[in-house]
């Protein structure tokens, strides 16, 4: 069974981003980039499923500029077997990415697609759900546990999902889409030998036009601004003063 994982190249989650002074966006020149952390969890889960004998091949997909090859090499160093880059310098929004993934699924015919629940740049939290809709497949978003089992020739996934107030468990037939939440696993660090090996793994490049997908954005970003700053308040000397302030000044208790 083939698994497709999607990996987005985003700003490194450990750096603090800066809004461009002209308000046109976020400063990305000379900023360290990395694989979206939720996508790393997706790659890890796919590789673990392969290691557990539930999958025969893990194909990593990324969409964006030529630098996304690094992201795919990273996924292959973690254990993905090959990579496909949908190369474009155009701005890609979630609906367009879902359509690109659908076109690749039509060619690759995976039984399972795993994606991060959201990317830490646009924080959209859409692509997995949109892809499932376009395919007419079941979806299990915000997964914290994934189990695959063969039920009389039909592969089934049992997924524990993070919901408000707790967890829920859903069962679905494959093919299906799963999106990952933080607690699903802890992604491995790629070892040097595996990084070297990843350089020799196949990486195919296609263009959106080859896939017949119109990626024109539907949302125009008019401006990007700094969030409202919260100014630091006062330090209080002791608990008595704190309680006095909360009661008489802030009036919240």
């Amino acid at each position: 069974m083939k698994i497709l994982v999607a990996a987005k190249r985003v700003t490194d989650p450990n750096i603090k981003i800066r809004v461009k002074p002209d308000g046109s966006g976020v400063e990305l020149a000379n900023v360290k980039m990395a694989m979206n952390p939720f996508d790393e969890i997706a790659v890890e889960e796919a590789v673990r499923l392969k290691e557990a004998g539930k999958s025969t091949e893990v194909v990593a997909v990324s969409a964006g500029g030529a630098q996304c090859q690094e992201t795919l090499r990273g996924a292959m160093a973690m254990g993905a077997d090959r990579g496909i880059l949908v190369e474009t310098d155009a701005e890609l929004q979630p609906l367009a990415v879902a359509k690109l993934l659908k076109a690749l699924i039509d060619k690759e015919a995976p039984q399972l697609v795993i994606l991060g629940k959201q990317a830490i740049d646009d924080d959209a939290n859409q692509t997995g759900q949109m892809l499932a809709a376009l395919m007419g497949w079941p979806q299990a978003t915000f997964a914290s546990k994934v189990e695959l089992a063969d039920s009389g020739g039909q592969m089934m996934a049992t997924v524990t999902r993070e919901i408000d107030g707790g967890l829920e468990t859903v069962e679905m037939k494959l093919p299906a889409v799963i999106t990952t939440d933080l607690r699903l696993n802890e992604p491995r660090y790629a070892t040097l030998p595996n990084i070297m090996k990843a350089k020799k793994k196949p990486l195919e490049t296609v263009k959106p036009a080859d896939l017949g997908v119109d990626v024109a954005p539907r949302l125009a970003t008019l401006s990007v601004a700094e969030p409202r700053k919260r100014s630091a308040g006062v330090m209080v000397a002791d608990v008595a003063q704190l309680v006095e302030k909360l009661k008489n000044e802030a009036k919240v208790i």
Partner: protein
Amino acid sequence: MTILVIAEHDNQSIKAATLNTVSAAAKLGNEIHVLVAGANCAAAAEAAAKIAGVTKVRVADAAHYDAQTAENLAALVIANAQGYTHILAPSTATGKNVAPRVAALLDVAQISDIVAVEGADTFVRPIYAGNAMATVKSSDAVKVITVRTTAFEGAAVLANEGCSATVEQLAAGPDLGLTSLKGRELTKSARPELGAAKIIISGGRGLGSGENYHQMLEPLADALGAALGASRAAVDAGYVPNDYQVGQTGKIVAPQLYVAIGISGAIQHLAGMKDSKVIVAINKDPEASIFQVADYGLVGDLFALVPELVAKVS
């Protein structure tokens, strides 16, 4: 402009997140319909009709809407989407699960997690964990939107005589049978829900253990009628379950009072609570970044200060 709000409910009552979403809808127009899809959900539909500003409640009552699966719910929305300019859902686990599915089936973009309405097609939303705010304009015919509930006051709930919304029964769509719910494990608590609490007591790594977390924070939460939250560090260390987590990857909250105890104030935590009205920080490190956003800061040993605070407010 006719707006459809997908209600979040438990068949008996309407969740507070729905009220915030109706408020966001009211900024777009005054023809607001609420979709209540559930099983034996007449009580929830009745409650939806009492939300101020709602003109029509559309109810689909069938067993296969009980679990609110994204697949069945999205299909139902699509079948009834005719005539709507905007389709809104709260940015909760349920809303985030279903709304993109609706958008894709309509072949439109989704605008996620809006915090302000600038016009019928223009919205403000946080990006990069709230470190930047983007103003975006949609060119699609239908705007599918999820609403950050803390950014909009909840709509009022009217008394019986005040409500004029009509209630319409919808034909249920087919059961697509794509996913089936096997069970839910909800954290049982007598305390208010994090998303709806007026006061939140939140703990971090400074507490040192899950035992300390409960021993220190529960009496304070009880004394103030507060909900309990935690930083991601405390969740990762296993002090409390994941649904306690406040932050960009957890819950976004904006209570009247947020008390951060033993929390250093990582960017990702601040993103989840910096819109609180009043923030109190108690930390032994005077350099902790949490003090940069706190209205009132108290430096010291939380193990001495918290019991003292409990005694003073009880």
